[in-house]
């Protein structure tokens, strides 16, 4: 299962973090900075997998942003059986979905529409497990919910 999912830029600033396993604030900060440092020190030719403190970490860089996923064994399992190649595919699917949603996603989009990105992510991952990988199945409800929110907000105002 996925323990955490991070989007961190090359300066080490976290643009989005989603934790599926509770870690204290201090540990989170330490973890994020350590991992991004490790990712930054690796070259393009090296493989996308790392080990960090018992987590199997899979990462990929898209333009200025690193998408980092940390996995741990399932509850009750002893060995981390996560398929690293599959997780790479999933990261790619996530990025493609965000791309479709934002019409060419960039770092600024994620920064200024943080809540919406979280909503999108929640449609795809729940509790560290994959919910949906089909882009339209993800984006249609997002769209509908946005419209509903918009209506409600207008009424609210």
């Amino acid at each position, binding site marked *: 299962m996925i323990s955490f999912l991070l989007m961190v830029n090359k300066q080490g600033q976290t643009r989005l973090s989603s934790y599926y396993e509770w870690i204290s604030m201090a540990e989170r900060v330490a973890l994020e900075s350590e991992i991004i440092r490790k990712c930054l020190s690796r070259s393009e*030719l090296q493989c996308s997998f790392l080990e960090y403190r018992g987590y199997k970490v899979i990462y990929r860089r898209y333009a200025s942003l690193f998408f980092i996923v940390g996995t741990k064994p399932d509850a009750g399992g002893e060995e981390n059986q996560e398929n690293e190649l599959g997780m790479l595919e999933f990261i790619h699917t996530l990025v493609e979905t965000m791309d479709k949603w934002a019409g060419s996603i960039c770092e600024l989009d994620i920064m200024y529409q943080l809540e919406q990105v979280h909503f999108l992510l929640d449609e795809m991952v729940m*509790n560290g497990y994959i*919910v949906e990988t089909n882009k339209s199945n993800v984006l249609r409800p997002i769209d509908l919910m946005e419209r509903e929110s918009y209506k409600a907000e207008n009424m609210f105002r």
Partner: protein
Amino acid sequence: FKMSMKLRDLIRKVRACKTAAEERAVIAKESAMIRTAIREEQEHYRHRNVAKLLFMHMLGYPTHFGQLECLKLIASPHFPEKRIGYLGMMLLLSEQADVLMLATNSLKNDLNAKNKFVAGLALCTIGNLATSDMSRDLAPEVDKHLKAPTPYLRKKACLAMARCLTKCPDMVDDFVDRVVTLLKDKSHGVLITVVQLMTVVLLVDVQNAEEEGIEDITETPCRVAFLRLVPALVKLLRNLLSMGYSPEHEVGGISDPFLQVQILTVLRLLGTNNEEASEEMNDVLAQVATNTETSKNAGNAILYECVQTIMATESEDSLRVLAVNILGRFLLNRDNNIRYVALNTLARCVEEQKHSGGSVLVASGENANSAASALQRHRTTVVDCLKDPDISIRQRALELIYHLVNQENVEDLTAELLNYLVLCPREHRADICARVLRVVDTYSPDDRWRVDTLITMLTIAGRETSTDVQYATIVYISRSSEDIQAYATHKLLKAIRDDDGTQLGLLEVGIWCIGEFGDFLLNPYSYEIPAKLDEPSSTVSFMQLDAATVVDTVEAVTKRHSCPQTVKERSLTCFAKLSDRYADKADPATLSRLHELIKKNQDSHSLELQLRSCEYDALLNAAKGISTPAGGNKDDDIFGVTTEPGVVSAQVISAAKEALARMPVVDLKVLQRKQAAAHFGEIGMGVVPRTNGTANGAAAKGGDLLDLEDIFSSGAPAAAPVVATETQNGSSAPAAQPAKSDVDLLADIFSASALPSQAAAPPTSMGGVDLFAAPALSQPAAPAVINPMDLFGSPPPPALAASVPLSADPFGS
């Protein structure tokens, strides 16, 4: 009434900050505003404030004051507020948060809402956060949604239920049958979530079974039910493979690779140790393995999972061949990720095979289809991976190489390992050295190679090797023939000369050898390396050295600034021994120089150096028949050598000479037993009774006087004090045995742990060392002596009493 900032504005402001301090200030100010707003119960901006809190939380600032706000929001009838409230809960709260319980009611209400998005929000939150109490409470509601009319809710309900079952494992059996219906769902989202639900449930089930002590996990109702589903899963997978182009789910030309991977995972869990299930999935696994496209990452992900499933289940041989071939192909792939994955899987498979098969890998006798033989075939590739620039790959390759070693390839592979040792980072060196030692222990083709490899390893990584390696090297050298001993000593001397003083292990072993076998250095040495396939024969030769050069080398080491205490101590012993070895062979100038070098430390600040210096000086004098200087203090005569002034008896002289003689050969079996005990037994507990037992055993034999079994208490410094207490038998208390007994081999050998403490007392009370008190060793002396010598396995029969204490160096250092 200040206008509160929108989240965007806050983000913009934080972005504009140039320093961390500025950012902290901005956040602190906003934090204060939010807290005021919360206190004043401003409903208007609750939504916005929580959004800002989420942002601040992501940056790492404390936000606990906002938790209750989230709860107020989720109770709101307005959708956007609810939404932000739930998001806030999921990000800001952990399952330990006390306020979480308060949400249960809202969750229940929202679960039953007519609006499917609201229900969806609730399911999502439960799936991410539910505690065990909440799970128990809400499970029936979640269950209803498993049969919801829309797949949107069904898929969320599946994973929410997975969480509930993880938190309340006892509920598993109630929900097993839901799974059956859900597997027939049309929506892929539901399918992928229900398959994951199955995986989670299976793991929980295993855990349950372990806790309840059920031996046979195949009989749990859950597993039985799921096993019946194997055909359905197989059918599902087959449909996916034969599905035509379906734009909805395809990635890179493959239909829903995520679902395929998940199905393969669950099949693996069901097929492990289950013949029947494995048979049912045989065909489809073959289909996946042969038909999946390997050009895209998605295809490789599926193949990877498939290989893992084949290896873990009871699959047919032909299937295993397929899997192994896939792994072989992966190893040759240029993509690093794929090679990493292949190395990983191979290592795991080989590891499992070793455990289940039990026998050590033997390439010839091994089944051609096994991972082990695939491994051998790809040996060169794996070795190449050792030189890969990527560290993850290097480490994986290293693991595999250990599994690869066998009698035939040990020389080549060890050479590769040593090459790697040169480049590898310091932290990993100690581990590699330990492993090379094990390889050397098990597979050495001959003595010379063994000694050679160990010395080379010490030259490369002497600093990082553990004392185990040093001891082992010494033991092997001492057990070898004289020829090899000469070779080793020459080689070590050369290495020490070339070394800059940093390779501690090398210095320790080298100096010991020089002392012990120094006489070999006075002769030249050469041997021929026999011609091999593509190399002509060559000769390795070392020049003879004169005594002075040898002494020079050792002296140079001690003169360095960086020379550690232990090396200096050892070099004193070395000088003492060389005095004996070169007694007839070297020029008097060198001999007196040796004596001077020893005496130099008489005033040393270090107690140990001083001690050795004085004692060796006295010993050398005794060996030469020189009595204490006339007119000198009686106290100078440490060993009571001279009974009449100016005379040293012949017996004393020979005793002294024997003290410096060659060390006897260690019994390897005893050593290994001891090492094994040190590893398994509790320090102190296992050691004491054992030594007593075998001590008596040795006594029975009467031989093995120098049963040096307690000597190599490597890595168990506590064993030394145990040994000391055992032998003390009431004589001076062991005091704090310094861990130096660990490092100082010779201290161990002669279990001087007993003696230094005695020696520390004023020289006159040298009780245990009173050997030289009388010219003839009288019986009364023997018992007094036996205490410290207990280690050597026996109260030796009186006839041997004379030799036991003599051959042992009672000075112990």
